[in-house]
Every structure is written in structure tokens, then in C-alpha cells.
């Protein structure tokens, strides 16, 4: 180095591309009297003369961290600026409008698009867990293409109602049902509205709102962005089932207890244990036979964006393919997405947006439903041959239900294609010619979503080795729910929605006074149509089409529905010098779910903010160590109308029904089916919304030049008029088909905390870490309870969710203990659960059951993140955890059982963890007792990423970042046997397809 002036050039970018107009100055030059500075051009390029090689360049850009970079003798310095989330001018998307961060009064959290792009779970909702406070997400399982509650549960600030707790999800201004399969690279903003900030969504906002907007073009040259993520996933945990010897011993113990003949001899058990005769004494691990260890998943996205003064564009395509974990490859999900967001500036007054997007997905599954497959995986006895050495599959279970074949196309297939087409036209017209600051915005969105499902059920062949002849006798296998014949069900569902809104906006700044506001109206109409047809006895498996079926047994059905909403709403915000801030919102909603007279509701909200740091008396502190400090409070009334419609009417249902409630009967010597009517509900003419009264007290702060930022909130919600059915107090003999009634009352409260620290050293090391935490609790104030419920089962005054179970005092270890126990179930033996006589009546009865006020929904959730980047490397991690959750892990089954039950009481192992062997619905041990409730607290390494950016010196035309990433890598918990994040393990009916642990590698390339 030396004193010679030199020229430094380079490009300044952010995650999305070049930054135009970044200020670059030579540090100290202004003070020295000769400011040396420049700005980046249209392509983010700059060139600056520096006085010497030791100079330091200061890069500043609104909304981004200021960075000081020593020149260190270099002539090319490329820089990636990262946006500063707490800079007051950053724009945040909130309901129907945007706000600068400094103007916010509500409780709002957001996840940046950069962060979302690092999510490599197939269902991106799961990747949001642990990233911000107040958003409580549980990964309930990794079934490909599943975005239902079975796969993921979403709560904002916990549970506040006995009814539906799902938040409202709004994508590009229009309410929708899920965002799980949006392309991560298309998401620009992800915002969670938690308090009065949600009030503008009125009748549907009580559970909070998630707002998502997709990316749009920015002015500049075309930028191409390609990313690829390739993932290998396996189950976090696989239920370990008993082996043959364990199973045989267990089964014998049951038979002995029940007084049934023993199924296995000592010799049999010895043979199973030795494993020397895999044909006569097999030891089949059905999971191993059916499932593979890892499946492959890939996501590839390409986008091009840019624009000039007239037109800006963002165009992207995304391909996603997820294999299932069945060895057969019969399970998988594939999805294509295209998106084109175009903005046209017609003139100084009129802008137009035209957005088109399309999603097409296809999920392939075996013909046998997943619950049948999982039943076979769990209950099929290990003592049966899975696959003979010559490759033929064994009989396994009932009607040849070998899980390896069920989980393959041998059982047929279920192919579901889903398409979603969305067209959105927006316009904004500057009405400045009427009065300054006035503008009009319109939005018309048309949505069509369809599902097209073909379910073909096939039969297959399994074999039984006939010892006498030495031949493999073929046996026809089939799922008895489908029948021993080929059948086909074609179904189609189509949903159309039209959304229109008009919004008049106003913004005016007079001196230090800023006033903004809008009034708007929106109208949503939708209709859905479904159609379904079934035929059996198809002529061959090669013709899975309806025409190839027989006439006998054919059926078809279809349903259409329509609904509508009409809403009016508006908001006024005022602030003085961004120091005193106030927001009002008001909304009037109409819903066809309720009777005339109860149909419209009004939902007000108000929030206040006080930026103390802007006060003159803080001048000494501000800019010293305090960067910003703001107090906020809010109040709002919101609604929840997520209930079945038309409960104010008497409804009759015609035909069909369920196995338990057949809505038809058969008459005639030549039997003929007569569909019937039944009254499916007793009407409740008074039914109306649930109401939520939300309050929030919050503080936002930033210290040390925004290096340390944070916020904290305390919130309360009082939910009234909760819609519940009086199942708990109305006896069955009344035969009332109970409607929901506005009865319940729940109070909930909690606090949230977010902290983040980011800094960079002169040596080029940038690092950050932080965490968030949400603690919630709720209490039932009023609900329906049986007339004389004892204190130990009462719900009022306790949390919403609970288990009703028999309390126990461990297990009877010896006959002496049994004999000495004054209270026990008649016939109790050593090894049985020792139940507690709660009511003290000297017997163990149903009245001894108590409520345990915990549930699979955690009361505490937290995330802890961190990362650093140095030169071309960066590393980041996310730990996520929960507390206060319990789950039921109970198997009450015939057939095989999980291996952990082998650790049980036997005369030889009186200290076994679990009760003695028990069969299905066993009186002594199978009932739900605290023995089967497990603490589901965990902390999990949710994400760990290591990335390397190829230096511009190596490749100058593109910015390339290579990464490896792991998801759900390590879990620390107390359950061990199964994944703690699923909601329940109960036989083959819940806890089926576990969450996934995955390893990804990939690259992003920007041109």
C-alpha cells in the first residue's frame, strides 16, 4: 500500500440484486474538508477515487445496515448489504396497506424473504417455526404434499377459543387456505398481525392474521436468479416394533392373563429368538420391508426481474418434487408453479398491476389408504414372512395385507392433481388533482382451484409356502374395505372465487403532522362444485377408466355450494413527528353463516404509540447508546366465524350417511335402497360471531446504533360468545343434534420477547444472534359442563385443553402390594396399573378420572438463532423448542406392539417400566391413565446452514452461493421412542407419518 490515490470499483447488491443509489463516501473526508463520495448506478456499480490504500469506505443506504469497509489495498470491492430490520423507514405490509416501521403501533412480526429462502422443508410452513415470537408452529408429520392439520398446525399467540383457532391467511390481499406450497423464492414479505393490527380483518381476525405478498420487479437491468435445493430426508424417528420373540412372549402373557390358550410354545419362542429358520420362524421388520431410509426431494426456481420506468416485472418458475419414503416409490408429490407479476406505470397518475400465477401439483399414492398401510405396518405380526428368499411376498395379514404391497402400486393408485390459477388486476390512481395525497386503489382477483382425484383399487398376489408340497401357493390379496375386485373412483372438486375491492387512500404531511387513512369495501363470492363416480369390476388393471367398469354397484354423487361476504372498513392514522402515533380501524362485516339480524358485526380497533426516543428530553441519550425506544398499546374487538354454516336453520340430510348413522334403509323382497331424511341439527336461531377483546402492551427498542434490537409484548384476550355445542351437559337421551351456541368464555394472556444482535468487525466478520420466546396461557371462564361435575374434572377456571385420565400411583410390583391395596379393580394382578381412588368411594370407577390440564399444544415456544459470515463463508443456525406440552403415547391394539412395551412388568422383571402385557381394550392397563402421557418438551436443531459464495475474482459474471443445510438434525427430548412434535400416538390412527430430518445441498446463482 502507499499514499497513491487509487480507484476502487465494485458492485453493491442485496439478496435480490443490485442496489441503485447507495451512498459511498471515504470515511473522514467530509471532516477533512473535501467530501469524497459517489452513488451506485443503475446496475449497482460504482467507482470511487480513494486517497490511499488504507482508506475506509462507508456504504449507506436507506433501510440497510451501514457498513465500513477498509480498502486494504484492493481495487475491486463488491459488497452485499443486508437490510436492517429495525430501521424506521423500512416498509412493512400490514392489513390493506403498508406502514413504515417507525409509524407502527401494532404488534407485528415479520420474516424476511432472505430467511424464507433458506427454508428447505417441503412444506414451508414448517420452516417458519421458531423464527418470530407469537407464531406457534408444530410439524405434525412429513407426508408428501400434505398441508392439512395432520402435517402442520399453526397458531398465533396460542389458543384462545374452544372452537377453531386457525389464523386467517392472506396472500396478495386475498384470504386463502394455505401457503404451504408457495415457492419460497417468490415470497417478498411474510407478516404476522397479532393484536389490534389484525382488527382490519374484522370477523375473521380473532385468531390473528398471516399476510404474505409475492415479489415484484424493481427498476434496473434484468436480473436472473436461479436456485436449486436438493434434499435427502428420512423420518426423525421410526417407531421400533417388537421382534418375533418379544411379540410371542408378550402375546403368551396376554393369553395367560385372559385365560385363552397360549399361542406360542417355549420351543417356538426359542426358534424365533435364534432366527435360524426364517421361513418357519420369521422375524420380519415390516417397517424395514416397506420403508426406505432416505427419500430425495428437489426444488428448483428460476426468476427474472427488472424493469424500467414504464414497466417492471417479476417472472418466476418453480419445480418441486418430493418422493415419499415407501420403498415402492408409489408415493410422491410434484409441483410446478409459474408466476408473473407485472407493474405498469401508465402516466403520473395511473399504475396498473397484472399478476398471473398458476400452480399445478400431482400427488401419487398407493391405492391403499395411508391409515390401512400404517395399520399393517404396526399390527402385522413379526412372526409372519414378509418376503420369501425368492422375492415372493408373504401373506402377512388379513387377506394378504402385506404392508410392502399395500404401500405400492400393487394395491392400485390414488393420483390427485391440484391446480390453482390466480389472476389479479390492481390499479392505483393518484387523485392528487382533487386534493393532494388522495388516491384510489382497486383489486379484482379471480381464483380457481381444483382437485382431480382418481382412486384405483387393485388386488394383488401373495404367496404361502406349502411345506408339504414345497410349492408357493398364490393367494389373492386385497384390502377388504375396497373388496376383492378392481374398482375405480373418479372425483373432481372445483372452487371459484371472485374478489373485488375498492379503496380510497389519503396521506398528508403538514409540518410534523402526518395523517393517513383509507376507506374500503370488498366483496367475496365463491362457489364450489364436486362430483364423484364409482364403478367396480373393471375389465383389467390396464384400463383404470370408468368406462371399463361394470354397471352393478356403480354410483355417483355431486354437491354444489355458494357463499358470499360483503365488508366495509376503514382506518385513520395520525402521528406527530413520529413521536405520538395513533391508529383507528373500523370494520363492518356480513357473513352468510348467520341468520338475518345476526349477520353483520362491527369491529373497532385502536392503537397508540409513543416514541420516547424522539422526545427532546431524550436527546442526550438518543444517538449515544439508545437508537430508538417506543411504547405501544392497543385494543380491538375482533370476530371469529369459523363454524359450519346455516346452523340457524333446521337441516335435513338426504341419503348416504356414515357407517354409524345410515341415512337409508332397504325394503322389498327384491331389496331396494330407499334414501332417507334425518334432521341433522336442532336449530339455533340466535347463533352469531365469537367475539374477542384484544389488548396489547408493547415496547420496541434499539440500542447501539441498531445493533441490538428487540421488542416485548404483553397481551390479553378475552373471548366471549364462543361457539360450542353443549355435548358435556345435554344427555344422550334427549336425542338433540346439538347446534353450536354462543356460550363459552375464555381468557388468554401471554408475553413475547424478541431480541437480536448484529454487528460486524473491521476484519470483515459479520455476525448476529438472537432469540424469541412466546409464553401463553388460557383459562376457561365459562363453558358447558355436566350438572354435577366433581372438582377434579372441572374445566372452568382451567386451561382449555386437557386429558381426562385415570390417575395412577405407578404399577403394582408384587402380589403383596396387590393384597395390601384396599382399593383396586377386581381381579387386579401384579404388574397392573395402580389406580388412585380419587373420589374415595373405595372402588376404581369412571368417577375417579381426573383432568390433567396439559395438551399437545405447547405453552412455551422459543427459537434461538445465530449466524456469522466471514469473507466468502457464512453459517447460520436455528434452534427451536417448546415447553409445557404433553402427548399421549398409547397403544391399545391387537397384533404387534411397539418395542418399548417389552420393557414391562413380568415376574422376572418386576421393575419393568410399563404394565404387564395387555390385550386390546384391557380393563386393567389399556385405559387412558397418566402412565401413557409423556412430556413432549423438546429443543431441536431446526436448521443449520453452511454456505460459500464464490468470489467475484473467480467468477465475475455471476454471484454464486453454494450451501449445505440440515433440518431437524438433532432433537433433545424426554420421549425418545417417537417424535415429540406429533400431536398423538394412538395405534395406527394417529402419529402415522413422522416429521422428517433432512440434509440439503444446493446453490443460488444470480446474474
Amino acid at each position, binding site marked *: 500500500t502507499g499514499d497513491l490515490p487509487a480507484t476502487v470499483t465494485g458492485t453493491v447488491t442485496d439478496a435480490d440484486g443490485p442496489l441503485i443509489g447507495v451512498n459511498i463516501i471515504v470515511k473522514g473526508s467530509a471532516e477533512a474538508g473535501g467530501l469524497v463520495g459517489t452513488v451506485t448506478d443503475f446496475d449497482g456499480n460504482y467507482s470511487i477515487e480513494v486517497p490511499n490504500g488504507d482508506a475506509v469506505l462507508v456504504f449507506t443506504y436507506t433501510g440497510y445496515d451501514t457498513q465500513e469497509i477498509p480498502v486494504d489495498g484492493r481495487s475491486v470491492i463488491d459488497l452485499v448489504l443486508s437490510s436492517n430490520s429495525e430501521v424506521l423507514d423500512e416498509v412493512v405490509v400490514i392489513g390493506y396497506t403498508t406502514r413504515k416501521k417507525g409509524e407502527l403501533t401494532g404488534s407485528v412480526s415479520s420474516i424476511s424473504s432472505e430467511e424464507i429462502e433458506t427454508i428447505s422443508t417441503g412444506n414451508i410452513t414448517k420452516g417458519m417455526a421458531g423464527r418470530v415470537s407469537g407464531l406457534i408452529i408444530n410439524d405434525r408429520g412429513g407426508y408428501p404434499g400434505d398441508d392439512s392439520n395432520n402435517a402442520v398446525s399453526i397458531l398465533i399467540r396460542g389458543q384462545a377459543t374452544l372452537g377453531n383457532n386457525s389464523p386467517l391467511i392472506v396472500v396478495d390481499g386475498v384470504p386463502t387456505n394455505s401457503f404451504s406450497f408457495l415457492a419460497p423464492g417468490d415470497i417478498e414479505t411474510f407478516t404476522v398481525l397479532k393484536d389490534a393490527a389484525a382488527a382490519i380483518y374484522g370477523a375473521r381476525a380473532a385468531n390473528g392474521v398471516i399476510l404474505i405478498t409475492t415479489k415484484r420487479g424493481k427498476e434496473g437491468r434484468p436480473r436472473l436468479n436461479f436456485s436449486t435445493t436438493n434434499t435427502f430426508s428420512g423420518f426423525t424417528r421410526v417407531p421400533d416394533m417388537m421382534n418375533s420373540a418379544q411379540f410371542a412372549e408378550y402375546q403368551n402373557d396376554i393369553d395367560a392373563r385372559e385365560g385363552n390358550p397360549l399361542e406360542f410354545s417355549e420351543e417356538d419362542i426359542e426358534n424365533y429368538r435364534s432366527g435360524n429358520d426364517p421361513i418357519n420362524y420369521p422375524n420380519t421388520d415390516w417397517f424395514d420391508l416397506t420403508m426406505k431410509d432416505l427419500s430425495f426431494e428437489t426444488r428448483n426456481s428460476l426468476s427474472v426481474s427488472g424493469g424500467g420506468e414504464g414497466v417492471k416485472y417479476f417472472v418466476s418458475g418453480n419445480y418441486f418434487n418430493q418422493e415419499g419414503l415407501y420403498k415402492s416409490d408409489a408415493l410422491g408429490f410434484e409441483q410446478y408453479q409459474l408466476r408473473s407479476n407485472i407493474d405498469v406505470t401508465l402516466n403520473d397518475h395511473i399504475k396498473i398491476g397484472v399478476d398471473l400465477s398458476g400452480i399445478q401439483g400431482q400427488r401419487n399414492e398407493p391405492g391403499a389408504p395411508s391409515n390401512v398401510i400404517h395399520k399393517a405396518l404396526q399390527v402385522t405380526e413379526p412372526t409372519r414372512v414378509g418376503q420369501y428368499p425368492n422375492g415372493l411376498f408373504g401373506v402377512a395379514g388379513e387377506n394378504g395385507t402385506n404392508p410392502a404391497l399395500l404401500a405400492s402400486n400393487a394395491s392400485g393408485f390414488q393420483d390427485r392433481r391440484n391446480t390453482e390459477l390466480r389472476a389479479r388486476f390492481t390499479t392505483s390512481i393518484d387523485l392528487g388533482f382533487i386534493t393532494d395525497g388522495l388516491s384510489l386503489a382497486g383489486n379484482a382477483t379471480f381464483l380457481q382451484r381444483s382437485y382431480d382425484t382418481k382412486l384405483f383399487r387393485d388386488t394383488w398376489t401373495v404367496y404361502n409356502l406349502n411345506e408339504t408340497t414345497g410349492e408357493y401357493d398364490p393367494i389373492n390379496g386385497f384390502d377388504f374395505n375396497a373388496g*376383492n375386485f378392481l374398482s375405480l373412483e373418479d372425483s373432481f372438486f372445483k372452487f371459484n372465487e371472485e374478489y373485488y375491492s375498492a379503496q380510497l387512500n389519503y396521506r398528508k404531511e403538514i409540518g410534523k403532522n402526518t395523517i393517513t387513512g383509507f376507506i374500503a369495501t370488498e366483496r367475496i363470492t365463491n362457489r364450489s362444485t364436486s362430483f364423484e363416480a364409482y364403478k367396480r369390476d373393471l375389465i383389467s388393471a390396464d384400463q383404470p377408466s370408468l368406462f371399463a367398469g361394470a354397471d352393478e354397484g356403480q354410483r355417483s354423487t355431486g354437491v354444489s355450494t355458494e357463499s358470499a361476504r360483503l365488508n366495509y372498513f376503514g382506518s385513520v392514522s395520525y402521528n406527530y413527528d413520529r413521536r405520538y402515533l395513533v391508529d383507528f380501524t373500523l370494520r363492518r362485516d356480513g357473513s352468510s353463516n348467520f341468520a338475518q339480524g345476526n349477520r353483520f358485526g362491527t369491529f373497532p380497533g385502536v392503537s397508540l404509540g409513543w416514541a420516547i426516543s424522539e422526545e427532546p428530553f431524550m436527546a442526550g441519550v438518543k444517538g449515544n447508546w439508545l437508537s430508538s425506544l417506543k411504547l405501544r398499546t392497543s385494543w380491538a374487538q375482533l370476530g371469529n366465524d369459523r363454524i359450519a354454516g346455516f346452523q340457524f336453520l333446521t337441516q335435513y340430510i338426504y341419503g348416504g350417511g356414515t357407517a354409524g*348413522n345410515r341415512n337409508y334403509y332397504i325394503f322389498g*323382497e327384491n331389496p331396494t335402497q*330407499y334414501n*332417507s331424511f*334425518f334432521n341433522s341439527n336442532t336449530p339455533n336461531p340466535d347463533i352469531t360471531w365469537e367475539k374477542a377483546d384484544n389488548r396489547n402492551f408493547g415496547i420496541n427498542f434499539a440500542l447501539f446504533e441498531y445493533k441490538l434490537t428487540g421488542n416485548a409484548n404483553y397481551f390479553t384476550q378475552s373471548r366471549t360468545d364462543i361457539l360450542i355445542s353443549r355435548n358435556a351437559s345435554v344427555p344422550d337421551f*334427549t336425542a338433540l343434534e346439538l347446534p353450536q351456541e354462543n356460550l363459552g368464555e375464555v381468557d388468554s394472556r401471554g408475553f413475547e420477547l424478541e431480541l437480536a444482535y448484529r454487528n460486524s468487525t473491521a476484519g470483515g466478520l459479520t455476525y448476529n444472534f438472537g432469540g424469541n420466546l412466546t409464553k401463553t396461557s388460557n383459562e376457561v371462564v365459562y363453558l358447558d359442563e*355436566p350438572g354435577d361435575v366433581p372438582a377434579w374434572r372441572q374445566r372452568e377456571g382451567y386451561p382449555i385443553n386437557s386429558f381426562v385420565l385415570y390417575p395412577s400411583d405407578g404399577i403394582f410390583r408384587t402380589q403383596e402390594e396387590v393384597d395390601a391395596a384396599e382399593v383396586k379393580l377386581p381381579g387386579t394382578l401384579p404388574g397392573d396399573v395402580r389406580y388412585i381412588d380419587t373420589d374415595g368411594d373405595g372402588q376404581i370407577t369412571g368417577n375417579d378420572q381426573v383432568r390433567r390440564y396439559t395438551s399437545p399444544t405447547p405453552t412455551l415456544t422459543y427459537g434461538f438463532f445465530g449466524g456469522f459470515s466471514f469473507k466468502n463463508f457464512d453459517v447460520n443456525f436455528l434452534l427451536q423448542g417448546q415447553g409445557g406440552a404433553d402427548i399421549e403415547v398409547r397403544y391399545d391394539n391387537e397384533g404387534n406392539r411397539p418395542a418399548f412395551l417389552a420393557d414391562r412388568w413380568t415376574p422376572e422383571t418386576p421393575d419393568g417400566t410399563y404394565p404387564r402385557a395387555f*390385550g386390546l381394550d384391557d*380393563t386393567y392397563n389399556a385405559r387412558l391413565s397418566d402412565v401413557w402421557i409423556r412430556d413432549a418438551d423438546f429443543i431441536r436443531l431446526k436448521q443449520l446452514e453452511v454456505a460459500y459464495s464464490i468470489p467475484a475474482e473467480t467468477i465475475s459474471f455471476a454471484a454464486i452461493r453454494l450451501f449445505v443445510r440440515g433440518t431437524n438434525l438433532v432433537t433433545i427430548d424426554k420421549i425418545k421412542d417417537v417424535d415429540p412434535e406429533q400431536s398423538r400416538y394412538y395405534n395406527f390412527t394417529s402419529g402415522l407419518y413422522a416429521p422428517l430430518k433432512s440434509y440439503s445441498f444446493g446453490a443460488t446463482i444470480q446474474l
Partner: protein
Amino acid sequence: EADIYSNVDLTQSLVDYTYNVTENWGLNVDVWWTRRIGIENASDEAWFHFVPQNYRITRGQIQPNNMGFWTQKWRQYYRYIGTANDFLSKIDQSPVAQSDPERVATLKGEMKYLRANAYARLINLFGGVPLFDTPFELTDDFNVPRASYQECVDFIVRELDEAVTLLPEGPRNGVEFGRVSRGACLAMKSRVLLYAASELHDPSTVPNGPLYDYNKPDKWQDAADAAKALIDLDQYSLVPVETAEDYQQMFLSPNSELIFARPFSPDFPNTPNDFNTLPDKAQSPVGAGGWGLSNPTHNFVQDFKMANGLRIDDAGSGYDDDDLYANRELRFYANILYQGASFKGAELEYWSPGGTESREAPGPNHYAATGYNQRKFLDESIVIDQEQSANRPYPLARLPEIYLNYAEALYHLGREDEARTYVNLVAGRVGLPAITTTGEALLEDIRYERQMELFLEGHRFFDTRRWMMADKMNEDIMGVQWEKRNAAGELDPDGTLTRLGPLLIEDRMFAPTFYYLPIPFAEVEKAGLEQNFGY
């Protein structure tokens, strides 16, 4: 709603729904297993292979909140009582009552029968129950006491008497087969009055009190009159039977002795899981592709008389323990599948190793643990899983029951001659020699006919209770097994057939508490209902 009560075809659909209250092959439709199997496994007729303990009451394990397979019974019957109450409270003021008075009268008669049927089943299971004939409103007080047993019986009889006047004369056959007829009402009345007159409801027996007692001096006369009223209708006649096969076939289609039945369709209905609830899948032996769920007990098999009319342990019966299935009465061969019997053209092999019905037969453990499967109700002409029996109804009332109801009432009235006449109509039809016994022995013969003639038709559970046969209900369930061994004593399919057992299958337990089911725990908690004796 206004539409439904303005068009009589739609009005009829409300009645059709309530028909689902009638019994069928399964104990109840809400529970996986018991959609397929019935009440027979709670009696000495049969034993359920998979979770026999779930009948609870056979082991003295039943509790108000642990009712096993009985859990839904209360709710199910009351559901249909509710729909009947709703209908009957609205129908008289409805437009159809003006426009179609005749059809409406018939529909009312059907509904009254269906409601009476539900109450009749409830009082058999629970004793006196809450009794009401108008629908509940959301705003009602739900603290309703249980009515006495006698009040319930009186209500049922009154309703059935009224239904008879509303219904058309003559049996309802052809397309109306399965609809309630006068005969159905009289059959129900006969059964209810016979039950009420029985020992269980005598105030002198335990349990007693208003919830269980029926105390009318003319109770046996009333029961006899009710049965006679149906016999005097002269609309039904016994189906002649020459062979066991004739007898078996009789149950596979509507016939002249069927008073009331629940029809089943040969089409696979559109309700999931339905086709395998029919007996061919649920009850056929495993080698024929069935599940053999209800295994007839060895106890029951040994109750079958010999063809000469003697019990197997009677002197001179000719019973041979080494050839125990030889020379039994006709209904044994028509109703039971056993080692060596022919089924669907093949001989059944219950023996190990490798017999078609043996425990090691391919597939899961559907082998008959007692050594028997049922034959009654099975249609050997169909392919299981692919076809259903064409028009096999589930019998709800048959003429032989009425004859036996009458014979039993006559016996208690001391009219033994007439009693013998009617019991012999039933016994003689299947070729048994005429019964000539008197006194206790005659009662035994009447009970025997009831046991065998009404096998698997849902009577035995209640009959053993109303006769207070505590010993029978306490009796352990036995089974037999078969093996083939060669000269070296090894299992060998070419060896000699030998019988093992009788072997203990289930250790049963009975106490007076178990004459009735407990009232479900939640109902007691919600409505403060009085719990049953002993629970």
C-alpha cells in the same frame, strides 16, 4: 322442513331413517367389531375370537364408564326415539295429514312400532328408563327421572295396540317387505309381555324395585293372549323342512313364517365397510375366505339333542364321544360347522398341521378357537368379497317364536296340553319326536326349542336372563381342537385325527348385578339418573 311434511314421499323418508333402529347382524353400527358380530357372543351361543373381553358383562368387568361393546347402545336407541318423537309431534298438524290421511296413518303406525321397539330393547338391557314421547328443546330441563319398568311396558303395549289400528291389514310383502305390519306389532307385544311376566321381573327376585319389577296378576294370561292374537291372524305358516339344507335355505330369503325382518341388499351399499358386516364375510370359516368371528361354543354344541329327541347324556341316547357329531338333530347340521362338515363343497379341516381351518392356515388368526363356525345364515352359493347373498333378511320376528312364546305362557297358566301342542309344532317341523313331558321337564323342552330354534337371532342373551339362569351365565366357555399325528407321535397331515379337549376358552363370571347393563356414566353425570343395581 315444510317441504318434507308437504310431500308424503318425503315424509316417508323420515320414517325410513328411523327403521335403522331395528336390529341387524351386528350388535351396534358405531363400533368396528360389533358392526359384524352380534349379541350371541355375550351369551353361551358363541365366543368372539378377537377381543372377547370387550363384551365385559361375560367377565363381570362391565362398569358405567367401561361398557365395552355396549357403549353405544343407549345413545343409539334414544337417537331413533328422538326422531320418532319429533315426527309424531308434528305429523298430525302437517299438510300431508290432510292430503294423504291413509298413508300418514300407516307411517304413524310404523313410527309408533319403531319407537316401541327401541323402548323394548332399552328396558331389556337397562330396566326402567327415562320415558318420553315428545321431542326435547334446547331450553328444556334435562333432569328426567327413570320411569318404572312397568310404566315402560305399559307404554310400549299401548303404543303397539294403537299402531295395530293404524296399519293396513295383512302382511306387507313384495316391495313393502320389511315395513312394519300388524303382525310385527303383535309379535313385539307378545315378546314384551312374555319378558315382563318372567321370573326376572317378579318382585321377589333380586334385583327388584320399580326399575325392574312387573307385578300384574294376569301377566301370564296377557302374554298368552298377545301370542294368540298373532296366531289367530292366520297370516303366517311354518316353512316345511325335510333336510338340514332346507332348514339352512329357509334363512336365505323371505318366507311364509317370517313376520318381520330387516332386508339387506345384494348390492354393495355406498356406506363404507358395510358389505363385510354381513355374515358371509364375518362368519364363514377362514378357509372359505371368511373371518369366523363368532365361534359357536362347545357348550352349545353339546346341548343339541340327538335325532331321537334325547339329550346326549340321557340313557339310551346313542351319543358316542368318539363320534360326537353323529346322529344329532337336524338343526345341528343346519346351524353349525364342525370338523368334517362339508361347506361350499369341501370338507372342513379344523386339524393341525395344515388343515384349511387350522390355526396355522395362511393369513391371520381367524381359525375357530372353539372348533366351530356357524352355518346358519351363510349362503354357500356366493363368492365371498365379490358377491352378497341376493335377498337374505335378518329375522326380527318369526312364527316359531310366537308359538314358543305362547307355549311358555300356557305352561305358566297350567295349560300343559296346549303348551305341548305349540312346542311340538316347532320341534316336529325339524323331525324331532313329539314332546310328551310334563311339569319342569316340559318347561325344559320349551326352553330347549327356544334355544335351538332361535339360535343367533338375538334371543338367548335375554332368555337366560329372564329365566335367571345364573349357572348358565356363569358357565365357562369350552372348545375343542383337532390334530393329526403319525405313529411316531409327530404332527403329520397324513396322521390319525384326534380330538383335544374340551378345553377352557373363557372363564366366565356372573353375579346378580349383571342381569342389567349399567346406565352410561356420562348420562348419570349429566342428568342425575339413578344407577342400576350393583353398579
